[in-house]
């Protein structure tokens, strides 16, 4: 299936005005609903999109936003595109290309492939600039048609992972680690060397384990303990111990080429909600969490 065949030139618009996210959505909905009868249309649809947006951001670091609505009994896929001369700020991510996708409740497969194709396109910055300058829906469709972009490629981990994640050095003190955990609301971090080479993983349980010696873990249960000094004094060791001493070196990690089903499989198999993503040369390229998969792929 070619991407160009799914597009309708009349639903592609180019905007040079400074608009808000809501205004762009409203314009797109107007265009689509003008020549296509949808189960929900007009302001109702705009509100649905905004509501979906507020649950989790639909923007990606490459400058594309892919808001998505699933409708009952709508056995088709409709795409509306807006190329923006003045980017919209999606909570810190500058978006200059909005692709609104409306699909049937059951057609998640096409949707995922579509997202993968759009994401791949969005990485080609010169092309996006060129499409933005065409100023005409037909020309955009033709240009994409010539490129023969197939939407059969499976989406991989590399497409949805968080690239350039927060990392920590093996030589960092535990105080630094604790600060990142509490300020960023994270519970796991990849550990890297100076060249961004992946060394292992450190999580909040490793940090707590500092206050729990091995012998305590050998007891069958500790219900008789009401207070325990080493645990209470955990933070006294913050400035003497380094991440290297508590990190785990044998955690499973994933390759960016991993398919989404495999990511889910690995997460369930290893009871891990967090994975580092490491390329073939051993460099850390991203991280992925179970909630990323859930929000961006399964529930998308």
């Amino acid at each position: 299936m070619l991407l160009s065949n799914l597009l309708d030139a009349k639903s592609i618009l180019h905007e040079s005005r400074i608009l808000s996210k809501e205004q762009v959505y409203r314009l797109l909905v107007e265009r689509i609903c003008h020549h296509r009868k949808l189960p929900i249309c007009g302001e109702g649809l705009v509100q649905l999109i905004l509501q979906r947006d507020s649950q989790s951001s639909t923007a990606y670091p490459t400058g594309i936003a892919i808001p998505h609505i699933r409708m009952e009994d709508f056995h088709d896929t409709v795409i509306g595109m807006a190329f923006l001369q003045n980017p919209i700020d999606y909570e810190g991510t500058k978006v200059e290309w909005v692709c609104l996708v409306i699909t049937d409740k059951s057609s998640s497969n096409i949707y995922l492939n579509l997202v993968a194709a759009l994401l791949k396109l969005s990485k080609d910055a010169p092309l996006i600039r060129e499409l933005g300058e065409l100023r005409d829906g037909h020309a955009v469709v033709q240009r994409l048609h010539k490129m023969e972009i197939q939407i059969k490629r499976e989406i991989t981990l590399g497409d949805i992972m968080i690239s350039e994640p927060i990392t920590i050095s093996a030589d960092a003190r535990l105080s630094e680690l604790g600060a990142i955990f509490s300020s960023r609301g994270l519970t796991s971090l990849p550990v890297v060397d100076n060249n961004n080479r992946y060394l292992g993983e450190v999580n909040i349980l490793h940090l707590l384990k500092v206050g729990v010696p091995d012998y305590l873990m050998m007891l069958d249960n500790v219900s008789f303990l009401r207070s325990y000094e080493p645990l209470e004094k955990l933070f006294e060791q913050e400035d003497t111990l380094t991440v290297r001493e508590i990190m785990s070196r044998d955690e499973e990690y994933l390759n960016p080429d991993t398919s989404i089903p495999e990511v889910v499989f690995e997460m369930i198999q290893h009871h891990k909600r967090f994975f580092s993503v490491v390329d073939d040369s051993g460099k850390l390229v991203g991280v992925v969490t179970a909630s990323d998969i859930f929000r961006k792929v399964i529930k998308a």
Partner: protein
Amino acid sequence: MTLMLIALAIFGVTYLLIITEWINKMLAAMMGGFAIVLTGIVHQKIAFAAIDWNVIFFLIGMMMVISVMRQTGVFMYLAIKLAKIAKGKPLTIMILMFLLTTFISAFLGSVTTIMILVPIVLLVASELKISPIPFIITMVIASNGGGAATMIGDPPNILIGSATEYNFLDFMINLTPPVLMITLFSTGLIWLLYQKGMHVSNENRAKLMSYNEKHLIKNKKLLIICGIVLILMLIALSLQSVLKIETATIAMTAGLFLLVISDRKKVEHILANDIDWVTIFFFMGLFMIVESLVETGFISLIAKNIMNITHGEPRTTSMVILWVSGVFSAVIDNVPFVAAMIPVIKQLGTMINNPEAMHPVWWSLALGTCLGGNGTMIGASANIVAIGIANRNGYHISFKEYTKIGAIFTLLAIIISTAYILMRYFR
């Protein structure tokens, strides 16, 4: 002769690997066991027949019983209760732990007792801010001593019990008295060695006293059932000769019963984790290797040589066995040692041809191997396990540090055993 030499070479290499732990103990025993089959020294059928299934299933059954009993929390309850009864006084705690370890080891085995009690002592010592090392060393000594008291307490006794006609009661009658004496004298020795030097602040003592051990017994019903099953098992073991049921069947009956009535969710975990399959297969391999020495006539050769030295005189033979076992068990793991010694003693029995005269020889072997295991930190499985736990928690017990204490207690125990054997059987 050539076959005997090959068998000896395989035996030597295997034992070297077991003692040095260059590779996993079970792997070494299994490799040796199948090497003797592969080289054609012993036919597979004979090698498999040499495996003492009574020992294997007894061990599996006991591991099931112990794993369910651990769930009741009763052992931790006892340990913490004793620490509180001692009011946090280090020497009193040490002596009470010594006695508790002796008692539990006699019924649950030395290794299990160490695995349950050493972590608790590490916790108690860290709360009291005193070194746990003297506690760990004396508990290891207690575990091997307690294990020597019964047929089911220590691996060497399990092997001897299975290889001979002696039942649980015979072991109690012949071995519990000397162990009680040894325990009494050892307690005195602990008091002499450690009465000075351990001080605890009131604050740290108060922390220990605030432990709420009542929370540990979560399932009273299971505890009562376990208690009844254990008592029935001990009665059955004592009445073995009347009931005509072998030890393995008694232990497996108890173990399977407890597993069936315990938490369904935990059964798979118990089977996979609490049954120590590595030990089980280690024993299987040992039986196969020792069989090659029996088949090739090496065991008879050794037995003949012992006969030449002792002239088959029971008193001399007992003394030689007691002291030789004591020394050997101190420097090598006593399980492989006793596995090789059992056929030797059996051979001696056929040569002496007087069952009465063999009794003290067997009891000497049991006392020598179990108590000799205390001599150094590698003498018995319980020692290795305890030192390992201490190590992982940052307490490094050196060979010298252990041997300094272990050797005194072992010497004391073997001297008491010598007096006991001489006075009881040769007066």
